[in-house]
């Protein structure tokens, strides 16, 4: 594809998501505003008001209603998207597993934010990590470009395996920061997103169906097993969708991104915008001859255990940075990395757990360098906190 100059835009992460939505032009979007997700829906609402897209935006009275309406619209056979953050996702939490359990591929754009209390409107991953076991595909984005690209990838993947998907950006750091990105031209975008053709939907009067029946001891277990099968199918399918997207856009994505990891002895694993800071820290340390590298998480659900184990197998010491806290337990990403290496390679590579950036607490290049420095030593075997006062 030739790249035209007007395909390069400077947008916030939220506006980049809205730009992707404009090209997808979904049928229905039930939404309720919440910081820091608001840039997505206010930008998109303006596009619809200006006649650039003809999505039916439903203004609902809460996020519980937003997700309920999204489920109803998707079940009716409409391509449906919504967006939320933090307490909004908490309020949606009752409906999230019903959407996935009913195998409805709703797309949700998430500007990840701390969850109360005490109240805090700034970015971290507590909200999306709190709902990680509810049957939604979760894809993390580092910057506005990835938000835009992941919106297309998640939509296609969700509709292919019939599971709902979240595209996650860091609240404020990504959702409100203006960055340069390259967008698709409309014919390519339309061609890639295609038309939504559900197998079963409520408005198909020739083949009537019921959604949301009761399934008790005699069948509930089987439905859950089937849902898990769909999640495991989503793993190879994600790769196929990414490859298809790369052919069209020239931007190749994978389960995760590695940065100078091949010969790295000390590695950091992180999701979201902090990966950008880590790359700068790594470049500076590499100039001094230090063998350091990064594994940036993209696909978090389903989690690519085997692929990650393979990518990290030559590291001598690994730090996993979680932007959330799992009270009374290990941090979620840390737990996944330990499981990846142990269950796939029976590996005894030391792995350190770091928690950072809760409630929007800044993380700097120097903090990342300090983590790499600490990785020279043996295991700490405790939870480390970056930037804790």
């Amino acid at each position, binding site marked *: 594809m030739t790249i035209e100059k007007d395909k390069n835009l400077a947008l916030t992460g939220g506006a980049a998501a809205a730009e992707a939505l404009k090209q997808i032009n979904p049928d229905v979007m039930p939404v309720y505003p919440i910081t820091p997700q608001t840039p997505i829906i206010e930008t998109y609402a303006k596009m619809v008001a200006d006649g650039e897209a003809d999505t039916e935006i439903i203004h609902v009275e809460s996020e519980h209603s937003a997700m309920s309406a999204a489920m109803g619209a998707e079940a009716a056979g409409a391509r449906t998207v919504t967006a939320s953050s933090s307490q909004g996702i908490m309020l949606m939490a009752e409906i999230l597993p019903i959407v996935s*359990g*009913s*195998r*409805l591929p709703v797309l949700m754009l998430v500007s990840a934010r701390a969850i109360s209390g005490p109240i805090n409107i700034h970015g971290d991953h507590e909200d999306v990590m709190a709902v990680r076991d509810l049957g939604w595909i979760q894809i993390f984005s580092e910057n506005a470009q990835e938000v835009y690209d992941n919106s297309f990838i998640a939509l296609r993947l969700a509709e292919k395996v*019939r599971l709902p998907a979240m595209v996650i950006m860091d609240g404020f750091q990504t959702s409100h920061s203006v960055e340069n990105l390259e967008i698709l031209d409309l014919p390519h975008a339309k061609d890639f997103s295609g038309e939504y053709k559900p*197998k*079963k939907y409520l408005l198909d009067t020739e*083949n*009537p*169906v*019921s*959604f*949301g*029946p*009761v*399934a*008790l001891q*005699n*069948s509930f*277990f*089987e*439905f859950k*097993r*089937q*849902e898990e*099968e769909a999640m495991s199918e989503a793993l190879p399918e994600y790769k196929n969708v990414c490859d298809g997207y790369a052919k069209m856009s020239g931007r190749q994505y994978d389960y995760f991104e590695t940065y100078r990891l091949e010969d790295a002895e000390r590695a950091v694993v992180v999701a979201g915008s902090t990966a950008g800071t880590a790359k700068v820290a790594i470049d500076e340390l590499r100039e001094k001859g230090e063998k350091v590298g990064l594994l940036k998480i993209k696909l978090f659900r389903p989690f690519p255990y085997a692929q990650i184990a393979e990518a990290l197998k030559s590291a001598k010491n690994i730090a996993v940075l979680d932007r959330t806290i799992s009270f009374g337990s290990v941090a979620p990403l840390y737990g996944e990395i330990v499981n990846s290496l142990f269950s796939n390679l029976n590996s005894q590579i030391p792995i350190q757990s770091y928690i950072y950036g809760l409630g929007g607490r800044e993380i700097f290049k120097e903090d990342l360098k300090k983590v790499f420095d600490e990785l020279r030593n043996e295991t700490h075997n405790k939870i480390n906190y970056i930037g804790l006062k």
Partner: protein
Amino acid sequence: MAENWKEIEEGAVIKHDIKKSPRTGDWRYMKPEVNKESCIGCGQCFSLCPEACIDYDENRKADIDYNFCKGCGVCATVCPKKSIKMGKNT
């Protein structure tokens, strides 16, 4: 109900294929029985059944689809001739 998890309906979406669908009638505790002698075919049970599982048979008598009847007893309560009796499901 299919025996294998691979064969059941995706997402518990019920198509009109009784062999593959989870049936509400499977968990019924009480079961209504229609006395076809005294039933006058007035249709009150027909219109008030919340599962819409009562129809007329060929003699215009109430006919219950036990695959979907959940045993709520509304039909027995509304029957003006007391022709529907609730008994324990066996």
